């Protein structure tokens, strides 16, 4: 940040994934480390399925839970954890001033109804009337509200009372990157004091698998760590996860005695059309904009590499230009959460900085290796499977 802008503290985080919920569990599991891909039920595909969650703990009303599909429950739950960790849960006055940016895709379709319609679809001209009648009679009226992208934010307002502002960004990985970038830019410039930022994905959905398989983006079994997928043409594994951060100006946090978990020092983003080599060049250009803020000796990288090619190989090419900097890709363990992945990775970077080192490596291709050097900064990368690149620089609080 320039001198004219305000320092941004991360004062709360809430994370849920296939590894479990909360910082301790994630740190422990990332250090064991044993990937837990779900192979049954999705063959030949793979999903990192959500660990069992007691949604009642953050969404006490069953009526609220019934109004949501799983992706919204995951997100509303993670948002509650983040507010709790920031000491903001239930503080009506603070929540009424709190800004919110959610990164979201769409909600679950009624797969059974889709299949029923497709199985009985007439071949004649009567197709559209048949679809019309089947949907009119078969769709649950409130399912729409569980599908609308902005209704994760809507549910967070209802369940947790965040009402300062409510914005939902879409656009796969870029939505999470832009959500953090714009929320932090607003705080830095004094347009906002405190913001809840994050998102959720339910990867446990065949309609979503279909969407990404249209583009041949999914890795098929057997499982392989993110960096080891290239020989098989690359591919991502969807991960059900929810991740939220509370970002806050230093002044605002200090005034309410909130402690920083880490500082968000910088975040930059861009897009390119992605001819061969463009992704690596885009990352290099972004890095030029933050390099002077980095401390190479104590820097670590947490990569949001999807495993898709050629993006993941180009990210690896760019990482090599940084020299001896330890790297970890979270996709190997939590899967690829698409919209919230970047937020999840900033949260995991925050954990690493609190522990003063990166978690255990999870790769045999040579990108990740055992490295216990102390770190004070983590560069978090987000490279969309199709479009969009971003880098955030997160710093230890002390």
């Amino acid at each position, binding site marked *: 940040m320039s001198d004219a802008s305000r320092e941004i503290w991360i004062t709360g985080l809430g994370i849920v994934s296939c590894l479990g919920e909360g910082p301790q569990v994630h740190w422990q599991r990332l250090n064991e480390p044993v990937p837990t891909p779900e192979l049954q039920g999705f063959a030949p595909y793979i999903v990192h399925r959500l660990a069992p969650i007691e949604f009642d703990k953050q969404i006490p009303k069953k009526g609220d839970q019934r109004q949501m599909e799983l992706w919204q429950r995951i997100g509303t739950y993670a948002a509650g954890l983040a507010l709790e960790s920031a000491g903001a849960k239930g503080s009506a006055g603070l929540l009424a001033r709190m800004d919110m940016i959610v990164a979201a895709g*769409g909600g679950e379709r009624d797969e059974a109804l889709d299949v029923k319609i497709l199985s009985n679809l007439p071949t004649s001209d009567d197709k559209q009337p048949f679809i019309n009648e089947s949907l009119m009679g078969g769709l649950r009226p409130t399912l729409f509200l569980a599908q609308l992208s902005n209704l994760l934010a809507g549910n967070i307002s209802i369940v947790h009372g965040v009402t300062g502002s409510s914005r939902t960004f879409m656009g796969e990985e870029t*939505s999470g*990157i832009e959500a953090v970038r714009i929320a932090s830019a607003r705080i830095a*410039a004094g347009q906002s004091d405190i913001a809840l930022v994050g998102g959720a994905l339910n990867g446990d959905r065949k309609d979503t698998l279909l*969407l990404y398989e249209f583009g041949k983006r999914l890795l098929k079994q057997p499982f392989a760590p993110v960096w080891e997928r290239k020989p098989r043409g690359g591919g991502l594994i969807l991960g059900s996860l929810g991740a939220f951060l509370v970002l806050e100006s230093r002044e605002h946090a200090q005034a309410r005695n909130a402690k920083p978990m880490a500082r968000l020092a910088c975040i930059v983003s861009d897009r390119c059309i992605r001819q061969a080599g463009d992704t690596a060049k885009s990352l290099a250009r972004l890095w030029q904009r933050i390099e002077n803020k980095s401390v190479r000796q104590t820097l670590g990288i947490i990569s949001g590499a999807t495993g898709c090619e050629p993006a993941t190989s180009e990210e690896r090419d760019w990482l090599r230009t940084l020299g001896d900097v330890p790297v970890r890709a979270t996709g190997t363990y939590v899967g690829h959460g698409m919209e919230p992945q970047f937020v999840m990775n900033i949260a995991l970077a925050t954990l690493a900085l609190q522990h003063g080192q990166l978690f255990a490596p999870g790769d045999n291709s040579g990108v990740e290796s055992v490295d216990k050097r102390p770190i004070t900064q983590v560069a978090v990368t987000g490279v969309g499977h199709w479009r969009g690149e971003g880098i955030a620089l997160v710093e230890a609080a002390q």
Partner: protein
Amino acid sequence: MAPARDRPRNPIVVTGMGIVTSLGIGKTDNWRKLTSGHSGIRRISRFSTAGLRTTIAGTVDFVPIEPFTSAGLAEQLAALAAEEAITEAAIGAIGDFPGPLFIAVAPVETEWSHREAVSVESRSNGDVSYDSLLREVAKGDYIAIHERCMFASVAENIAVRFGTKGSPVSLSTACASGASAIQLGVEAIRRGETDVALCAGADGSVNAESLIRFSLLSALSMSNEFPEAAAKPFSKNRDGFVMAEGAGALVLESLEHAKARGARILGVIEGLGEMADSFHRTRSSPDGKPIIGCIRNALADAGLDPIDIDYVNPHGTGTPENDKMECLGLTAVFGSRVKSIPVSSNKSMIGHTLSAAGVIEAVVSLLTIQHQRLPPTINYQIPDPIIALDVVPNVARDAKVSHVLSNSFGFGGQNVSLVLGPEPK
């Protein structure tokens, strides 16, 4: 990243505007029809409406898309509106717009045509299941469907076409989306992050499943018999909104940047207000506090008092709930003067363009200031006694208009208000 301190008093001006609605393409055609009380609502002809409760909409049928997809239409409408806005602003080189893109779009989905195409291929192996669809997709070439159905696709393609800078932001705040896009652009310029921004909203969502979803929530008018008369905002017999398609686009600039390049200034985004509602997924808090707070925030941001507002371009959807609550909110903010402030709903003529509405109505609000003429609320035959507003019934009229309040409210507790004004003296 080196954002300057917020500069709320540095006006953000509009130097280019574009619009496409069911009434036509471009400002000239739209303004002529809006002020002569034309309706763009018609019987849906794009697909069979057999079995649907609502069979009318403000479709844009005069922009051909082959093969038709909602995202494809939204993209083409956004391109038409952006082209008009950028041409008017005469900024940058062709394909090299010197600022970021903020675009409100509907959530993108795979469409029935996509599922059906795969299903037909997969059916030879027995019953259709998502597993059989996946098996078929794994074999064939469906990359075009993937790229069409990415949520980022409309923004990406518009960014490429017009050469906007940085990573484009696609957003959805339901029916407030367009206004949110304008907020994001204004805030980025105020931060000093950019001098210029392209803010757009586009929607091409009139398809069977979308109609059915809104129908099942009892949100749509079922006055199918006379399509042009179906959208009846503020009337006692209003029975829901009418879905519509369209797009709007604004080129926003800081005043100093616009002046420095000698640009013609079309108006000012004077203030932004927002306040989310935590009451219910589809209904407003019965006390109206979030709507009231949202409007007051916009006035405060503009540095104006309620007395300064000459005209309201309301959300005015024509649903029983919205119009009642919006009237309640306006009454709380404006007090007894509310009865003498004209409030007319563009949606009576163009329908509810959902994600695009906020930008389209900002364009119309600025045209209202430019022409000093108020478009009417058409189809106003039976006044609602609990909505005692001057809705500019049925016929346009001249008026002195300096400051316009434009409201946008959406499912999920979304409330955004804008204050728009003339070129600063």
